[in-house]
């Protein structure tokens, strides 16, 4: 029901942007669609919420369960932050209004396809929708028509296509495993039916796990196919980077969430080893690059790789770490939205992404400086944010399971990233302003989305309402947690 309403609202929004003649009209459409989607989700939470109920609809192609509903709320929250940010940018810069109708239309198409990913119960449909989100976001990355953004969007397209092709190959191998085990008629691509098959270990299932994990990890920007992420996040418009990190990233995480319980029953050891190895290598790569980079947007991009690595390790660690992973995923989306939207404001004001040239942000841009500072604290996993609790739960699970080597390596890498990020970012936040700003005043609209995200982040770390906690526990239980 909520899904159908959100799809309908977004679809009507896409049609409305086709008729919109000005940037103002497109902004109105975007605001209305975001608001109505939020109302629909809120109404659904209040009236139809039952975390244990799995509703299969439209010939089983779609499912509404605790996982899809949690991610629906999350991506809607990111959209709620995206909309005022876009309004503020268009108001403060007339150049941003150029081709804004096309921009909004592509954003809404992207969002609609993300909704399909979230509610899909079919592997192939989910894959096709995820590939669709990639194709929809490519022109958005290249929206500013610069050579660097052109290269970045091309790299993103090629890496994503290769990653998703490898994932598709993984599905084919899993289908081969099903056929070998139970005959031709047993082959299915519906998640609920795959779970019931009780797939046994075979060469095909192992190949399937390998390719599905490798493919999805490359879509998350994890090693070895990670190099698209820093470039894309750096050169895409900040609003689009926020959507990539806060929305599309979580659609891929959801796909991984759907596969983890199925694959861990087939060959848990292989899945665990793969996820932990990929996670650790990715965090190492991210750590080294965080030490080197002087570009604050790239630094946040590498921090995204680090976060994806921690999520992979958490999924590999299993059991009680699953709840931590969910908290971490939710916090991660909000932190990225805060930091990327704020970095857009900073870039607009100073015209540079070089951290060594920026100082005294908190004096010169109090709203954005404060948001950036708190965002960085949450990024580094400070208490009392949700990321802190999430990281703590993953680390304690590693200790509990006796994975001492992974625990020590992860602990060391987290400290390294903490020091490297602090060393680069803290002088940028404090100190005496040096650069002459391009824009004078800072609109309250630039603070509104960040304030909202900060409240959600604090809530994840300090107090999660009972109903919300029950939902998160259910998501963790479906993953295989206690």
């Amino acid at each position, binding site marked *: 029901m909520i899904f159908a309403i959100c799809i309908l609202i977004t679809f009507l929004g896409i049609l409305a942007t086709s008729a919109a003649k000005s940037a103002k009209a497109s902004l109105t459409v975007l605001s209305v669609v975001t608001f109505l989607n939020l109302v629909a989700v809120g109404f659904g939470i209040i009236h139809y919420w039952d975390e244990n109920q799995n509703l299969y609809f439209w010939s089983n192609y779609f499912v509404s369960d605790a996982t899809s509903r949690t991610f629906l709320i999350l991506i809607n929250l990111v959209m709620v932050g995206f909309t005022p940010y876009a309004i503020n940018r268009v108001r403060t810069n007339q150049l941003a209004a150029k081709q804004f109708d096309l921009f909004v239309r592509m954003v809404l198409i992207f969002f609609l396809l993300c909704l399909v990913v979230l509610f899909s119960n079919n592997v192939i449909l989910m894959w096709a929708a995820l590939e669709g989100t990639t194709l929809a976001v490519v022109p958005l990355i290249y929206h500013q028509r610069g*050579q660097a953004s052109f290269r970045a969007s091309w790299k993103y397209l090629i890496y994503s296509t*290769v990653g998703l092709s490898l994932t598709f190959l993984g599905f084919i191998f899993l289908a081969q495993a099903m056929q070998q085990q139970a005959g031709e008629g047993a082959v299915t691509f519906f998640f609920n039916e795959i779970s019931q098959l009780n797939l046994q270990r075979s060469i095909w299932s192992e190949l399937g796990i390998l390719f599905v994990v490798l493919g999805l990890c490359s879509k998350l920007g994890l090693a070895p196919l990670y190099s698209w992420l820093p470039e894309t996040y750096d050169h895409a418009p900040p609003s689009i980077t926020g959507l990539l990190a806060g929305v599309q990233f979580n659609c891929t995480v959801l796909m991984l969430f759907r596969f983890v319980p199925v694959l861990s029953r087939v060959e848990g050891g292989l899945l665990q080893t793969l996820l932990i190895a990929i996670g650790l290598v990715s965090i190492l790569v991210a750590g080294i690059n965080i030490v080197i980079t002087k570009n604050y947007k790239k630094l946040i991009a590498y921090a995204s790789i680090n976060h994806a690595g921690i999520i992979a390790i958490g999924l590999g660690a299993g059991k009680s770490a699953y709840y931590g992973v969910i908290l971490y995923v939710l916090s991660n989306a909000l932190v990225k939205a805060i930091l990327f939207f704020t970095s857009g404001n900073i870039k607009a004001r100073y015209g540079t992404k070089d951290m060594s040239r920026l100082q005294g942000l908190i004096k010169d841009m109090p709203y954005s400086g404060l948001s950036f500072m708190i965002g960085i604290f949450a990024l580094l996993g400070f208490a009392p944010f949700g990321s802190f609790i999430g990281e703590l739960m993953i680390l304690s699970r590693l200790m509990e399971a006796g994975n001492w080597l992974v625990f020590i390596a992860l602990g060391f890498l987290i400290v390294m990233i903490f020091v490297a990020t602090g060393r680069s970012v803290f002088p940028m936040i404090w100190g005496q302003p040096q650069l002459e700003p391009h824009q004078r005043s800072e609109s309250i609209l630039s603070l509104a989305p960040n304030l909202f995200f900060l409240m959600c982040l604090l809530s994840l770390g300090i107090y999660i309402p009972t109903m919300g906690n029950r939902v998160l526990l259910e998501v963790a239980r479906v993953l295989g947690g206690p």
Partner: protein
Amino acid sequence: MTIWLIAFMVAFLLPILNGSWRLGLIGLGLQTTLLAVIITSSSHELSLPLGLQLVDLVFVRGVLVPAILISVLRRVGISRDHDLLPTNFIYWAGLFILIGMGTWFGYLLYPEDYGRALQCGTAAAGLLSALFVLSLQAAGVGQIFAILLMENSIILFEFLNPHLHSLALQLAISVVFIFLILVFRTFLLQLSTLTSNEGTGEDKDLI
């Protein structure tokens, strides 16, 4: 079946070993047509999903895609010669080692079923070769070729399993593929209009 698989491998090597993108695109079209022959020669009954898959293979991937790419490459004036693989012995040896490895993989998985071993081996050899080409290509055109070669190998892997997707899913896959090609087309057109002095500095980050 064997003859079609051998023909597929020949059509697969045509774009890689021949230094002309026109012949390469013809090779790509030939591959998908051969894939259509391979699927019809297996024990499938004629159905709507199969019909759609045949249309996808013969008309979309076999005719439409090469036609779109030929027209756009002509329009942007890309030189006729385009090596997917550097013309030296080391790279050629590397390619044939990968083909050998792929074929061996097929026999490893199906030691007692010659037909399936050959199909699986051909698909694996194709996939490894496509990834090899992709890793060597810095040019956009070459990367597009490599991705299309990879797609064709994956389809051959898919045919190992007699399961057919439903009409809706088959349609979704075809639509996504068509949009991918349209995005490739836009990129190639944009590549030709993007001059070296445009946007060489930092992006403006307007939105």
